[in-house]
């Protein structure tokens, strides 16, 4: 029993990172009906820069690098929009391109090395279970970020404007909402959050140039599994996936435990009631 609890706790801590990566995806979806598949790459570039420079200045530079990358993505987004593209999938595929660019740049500039930095090495004992402070710190940060986002999206005029932009961009523009500026801002915020996730990964598990796609897909899973619209669901999605993964690697065979996150996603999605919007023809 104690082992079970331990796996659950460890999974929850691990899920915090997924939640942080999922949050920008959810935010962007709520504002622009698309997904940014470069978040894993933002995380990587943030970690690489932070590890190279080191210290607080490194962390700041890392976040700046991630936001700069996201700014490039936002320009691509605006370029596509200005040229008449409305298909969210095209934006998403373009972000795959940017992800490839960043990943390749990191490999070229830093080589195939891995990045890892340990600041907080201490751990706390909780009823015989040792939890490291960095992990708890990660969870705390993820929770704070997600709650702030939730409040912003659900209960502020900014959030209403964001949602309006997604549902009806033309209408929102007519209502004097700066739709494009808002969407670019969300891309930037996404870069910041993904950069933050990258830093936390750097301080806990470490990261290398192969990581972006895996990180992106973990975040994507966490963002979609309980419904993409809300940051809170991202947190639950991330934690649920972390817990499922931890329990599986604790108790199941390697093959089954590798499958578990995917089986979990399928299970949750198959229980979801039919997408009424899709039935009515609304394919975002």
């Amino acid at each position, binding site marked *: 029993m104690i082992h079970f609890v331990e796996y659950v706790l460890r999974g929850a801590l691990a899920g915090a990172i997924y939640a942080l990566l999922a949050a920008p995806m959810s935010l962007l*979806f709520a504002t622009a009906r698309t*997904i940014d598949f470069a978040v894993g790459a933002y995380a990587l570039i943030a970690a690489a820069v932070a590890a190279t420079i080191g210290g607080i200045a490194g962390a700041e530079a890392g976040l700046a690098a991630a936001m700069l990358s996201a700014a490039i993505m936002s320009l*691509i987004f605006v*370029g*596509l929009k200005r*040229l*008449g*593209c409305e*298909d*969210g*999938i*095209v934006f998403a*595929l*373009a972000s*795959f*391109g*940017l*992800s*490839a*660019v*960043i*990943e*390749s*740049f990191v*490999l*070229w500039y830093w080589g195939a090395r891995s990045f890892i930095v340990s600041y907080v090495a201490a751990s706390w004992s909780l009823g015989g279970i040792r939890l490291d402070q960095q992990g708890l710190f990660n969870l705390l940060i993820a929770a704070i970020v997600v709650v702030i986002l939730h409040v912003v999206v659900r209960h502020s005029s900014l959030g209403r404007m964001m949602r309006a932009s997604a549902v009806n961009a033309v209408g929102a523009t007519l209502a004097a909402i700066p739709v494009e500026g808002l969407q670019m801002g969300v891309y930037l915020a996404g870069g910041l959050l993904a950069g933050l996730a990258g830093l936390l990964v750097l301080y806990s598990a470490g990261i290398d140039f192969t990581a972006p*796609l895996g990180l992106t*897909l973990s975040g*994507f*899973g966490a963002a*979609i*599994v309980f419904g*993409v619209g809300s940051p809170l669901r991202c947190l639950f999605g991330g934690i649920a996936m972390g817990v499922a993964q931890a329990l599986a690697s604790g108790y199941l065979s*390697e*093959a089954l435990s*590798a*499958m578990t*996150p*995917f*089986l979990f*996603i*399928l299970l949750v*999605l*198959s229980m*979801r009631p*039919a*997408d009424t*919007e*899709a*039935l*009515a*023809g609304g*394919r*975002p």
Partner: protein
Amino acid sequence: MSFVARRGNTLVLAICVLIALPVVTRNAVWTDSAALLGIYALLALSVGLSYGQAGILTLSQAAFASLGAYAAAICTVRWGWPPLADLPVALLLPALIAFPVARLVARLSPLATALSTLAIGSIIAIAIRSADDFTGGYMGIAGVPSIGFVKAPASYAWLIWAMVVIVVFLYENLCHSAYGRALNVLRFDQARAAADGVNPPMLVSAAFAISSSIAGVSGWLYAHYISFVSPESLDAHLSISALLMAVVGGAEFILGPILGTLLLDGLTRLLPAAELQGVYYGIALIVILLVARRGIFGLIEGGLAQVRQLRRSRSGEVTALEIEASRP
């Protein structure tokens, strides 16, 4: 006449293949590239059918291709079947898995669809690599025999492109049938399609199953041509590439995915190979998407439409609005 008119894409492709392949097969590297391009083109076509026609944003086509490839490898190497006898298996196995999967995803939003197909693809890949004795685990299976008389790379290039032409022929038939039209309606408005008498989940699943069979064929050809399959051969990256190829060429156009394959794969050939390749590739991809949002074919079609309109207005042909105005 109508037979020809309704198979324009097949004819264009067949003519291109007949002109290009004799030239290409003079050079060993081009021959090899042609064969692999054909295999990737089939994979991109399968994405074209499932995303461009049925609206299923799929990230699992490489996994279905690997089912086809492993079917070929296991049937011939493990069980000693003659090559060709394994083709039905390579066709049916992916379809049998894809059909129920599509039942599940048909009602989800595109993002959830993408996620669940990604999940299915990963599960297939993990299952394959975990069945050590059966599939050779991570090491894969080497020594898959050639398909009978087809041995030299040039014959493979011909076989593979013949297969591409056949698939395009079938695909074009489908598009010009009631089912193809229904898929087209369904992609835009499921309710509208249902009111036409379409059973949306059923039709989408059937289309996805066919698309997976195409992927299976591509894997079957892969296994026999390369003679080796491993979990890395047809991995998730390839699923993403196939989606990109289809979209870049124009997923909704029959020949779009093939054009996208030639373009994107050609790019990776021409760009200098090393660490920075991803930078060039990514930038090229973004530029292409910026220039051609509906794919290269969308660009071509848009240009043609403009020309047509210009010609019409010059020749004084009636336009829709005029017709409307002249209605009794």
